[in-house]
């Protein structure tokens, strides 16, 4: 998912400048001009795509091994929504500027239905064998493989070992323990991703799913949205804000503000992605440094754990002039231990190759990922996901913040989901 490793003001400003300046990819008029082989362009965003990031290292590794078809990263914005917009602008115009697309797990359906990506059925067996089942599933739509898994992601519960003895297993426990511990330490209990954006939907779904709720049935022909459960978890979150279990910055926080709160020692618990682990571990000035650990996310019922599955897959653009080489690249990035191990060792970016987890089981992050990934749940990779997500944000975010009625909010979500089935 969205990972940022930039610092406060300067970092934020830089990201925005990058977002504003990143071209649609038309600046590379050199590919497709009849050169045999030729350079591939990989449109991917986020902190790891920047110079020095692990995606760059993976690109360099490939370019060294394949001097005929080197690959270059076209840096997309930090925000997933904006990455998608940049790619959509190019693909909508049937532009050949991008050969390989870094595709968020929730865009698979949309991209395939729009005819923007090549089917990877020819290399399916190879990829399926190497990849984690959840990640593989996220790259398929309508029974067909549209992308090669590249990295996956799951949420962790970060907790302060100096303030609480063991991680809670239910969200209600978390609030109870958290409020007491926070009061004693003079800080706040919990932070997650509560700003009105995709991350909020992810956080909300983790409560809803862990209470036993579902959005659709398996093949998305029927809506299983349970308004009663949805109202319960929404009420829980609203109470958690009103009663001070969630830190005051919760409802404006994305990943990075949440990480900052935890890293500065302002919260007892945090829900965030694995990348935070390395950053807090390296920051010796942080009060959390040496005093924190990671655990599976709590649930509503106290049984098991559940996390929303994140991550990026690599798809081949249907408008690429160099599809064969692009297919070779995405297959290699999914099935070769070298790039996959790089992801884990260089950046705590969870790889999708099963065997890498066995090789790296000494690493606490990889060990916990190995534990929670089998229970991670993909958001429906439907073509409508983006619309569904925006609607859920619009309905549920105000409800969680005590503006507007919870019952009518969850009903409007159900109605919207019903409308997506025809």
């Amino acid at each position: 998912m969205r990972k940022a490793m930039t610092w406060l003001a300067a970092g934020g400003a830089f990201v925005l400048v990058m977002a504003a300046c990143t071209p649609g990819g038309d600046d590379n008029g050199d590919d497709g001009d009849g050169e045999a082989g030729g350079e591939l362009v990989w449109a991917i965003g986020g902190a790891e795509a920047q110079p020095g990031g692990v995606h760059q290292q993976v690109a360099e590794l490939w370019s060294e091994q394949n001097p005929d078809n080197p690959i270059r990263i076209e840096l997309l914005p930090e925000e997933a929504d904006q990455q998608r917009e940049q790619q959509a602008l190019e693909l909508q115009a049937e532009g050949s500027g991008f050969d390989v697309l870094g595709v968020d797990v929730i865009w698979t359906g949309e991209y395939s239905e729009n005819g923007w990506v090549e089917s990877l059925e020819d290399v399916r067996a190879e990829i399926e064998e190497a990849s984690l089942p959840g990640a593989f599933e996220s790259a398929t739509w309508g029974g067909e493989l549209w992308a090669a898994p590249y990295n996956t992601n799951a949420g962790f519960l970060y907790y302060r070992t100096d303030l609480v003895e063991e991680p809670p297993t239910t969200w209600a426990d978390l609030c109870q323990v958290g409020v007491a511990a926070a009061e004693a330490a003079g800080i706040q209990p919990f932070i997650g991703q509560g700003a009105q954006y995709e991350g909020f939907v992810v956080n909300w779904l983790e409560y809803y799913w862990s209470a036993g709720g579902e959005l659709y049935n398996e093949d998305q022909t029927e809506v299983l949205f349970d308004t009663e459960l949805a109202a319960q978890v929404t009420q829980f979150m609203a109470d958690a804000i009103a009663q001070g279990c969630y830190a005051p910055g919760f409802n404006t926080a994305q990943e990075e503000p949440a990480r900052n709160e935890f890293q500065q020692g302002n919260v007892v618990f945090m829900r965030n992605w694995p990348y935070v682990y390395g950053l807090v571990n390296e920051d010796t000035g942080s009060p959390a440094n040496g005093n924190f650990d990671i655990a599976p996310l709590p649930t509503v019922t106290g049984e098991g754990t559940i996390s929303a599955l994140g991550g990026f897959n690599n798809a081949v653009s249907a408008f690429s002039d160099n599809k064969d080489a692009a297919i070779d690249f995405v297959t290699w990035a999914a099935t070769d231990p070298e790039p996959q191990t790089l992801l884990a060792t260089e950046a705590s970016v969870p790889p999708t190759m099963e065997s890498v987890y066995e090789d790296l089981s000494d690493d606490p992050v990889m060990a916990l990922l190995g534990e929670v990934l089998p229970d991670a749940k993909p958001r429906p990779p439907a073509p409508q996901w983006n619309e569904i997500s925006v609607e859920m944000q619009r309905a549920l975010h105000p409800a969680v913040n005590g503006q507007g009625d919870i019952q009518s909010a969850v009903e409007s979500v159900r109605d919207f989901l019903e409308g997506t089935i025809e």
Partner: protein
Amino acid sequence: MAETRTAPPERNRAPTGRGGPRARRKGLSERALARLFIAPSLLVMGLVALFPVIYAMVLSLYSYTRRQRTGFGGLDNYVDALTDGRFWSALQFTLTFTVTSVAAEFLIGLGFALLMNRTFRGRGITRAAILVPWVIPTVIAAQMWFFMFNVTPGFINTIFGLGDFSWIGQPGWATFAIVFADVWKTAPFVALLLLAGLQTIPAEMGESGLVDGANAFQRLWYITLPLLRPAILVALLFRTVDALRVYDLVVVMTGGAFDTESLSVLVQQFVVRTPDPGFGSALSTITFVLILGIGLIFVRMLGRDIMVGRGAER
């Protein structure tokens, strides 16, 4: 008035020119020639300015499922838009934002302009300092104010000792924060426009007011402001039209949460984020008409003002 003064001689010349043998020898009349020369630039302007607008109007008549056109829908998209509560709340925010931010920018900008118009030591530095916020790109200013207002890192809360007050995490205050950031950023621009107007006012006017015994407020109210009227209208026109299109501040600071969704954010959602080109175009056409209408009112007032001004001079 200016029109009627210059028109008669032309009208007298034209018939003889067009009918006389001289004109025929010369080919086109002066007026036709002028039209011919202007035609290419009008064409280019038409293509650049009007084509997208008309194209959006055409698109708004079709219905779509995501990016695929599914048929002709007539005015369905407009009916949907105007019956959608979301449109009305976006309109409400946009108007609230426009009225409050433009009013505050005008008052502060006028103050700055009056200050900058005086002669004092360090005037150059003061002018430069006042203009700094305006030079900063809006997204960066927005991100900066996000950090200032947000609970983390919460600079404003730290400075004023407000603890964990969540400025942008609740309705009302979120709007305030966005208006505040806009005023901070654009008041200097208003000041610049008003300063240009102030500098065209001869100093003797104020001096004679002084001789007649008018106090500072009377001189401002009865001399400066009336003479500044055209500049004020230009400044208000620019700012109002600009404020009605507000997008970047909202997206960066709140993402449209807490009742701060503006019309442009709504349009962007349906054009880019969750594409429905028909509905998106209908929304953008409505926004366009609204802004055009308000813009025209200003231009009307401005046009009359300039004419009345010229008449008075003569």
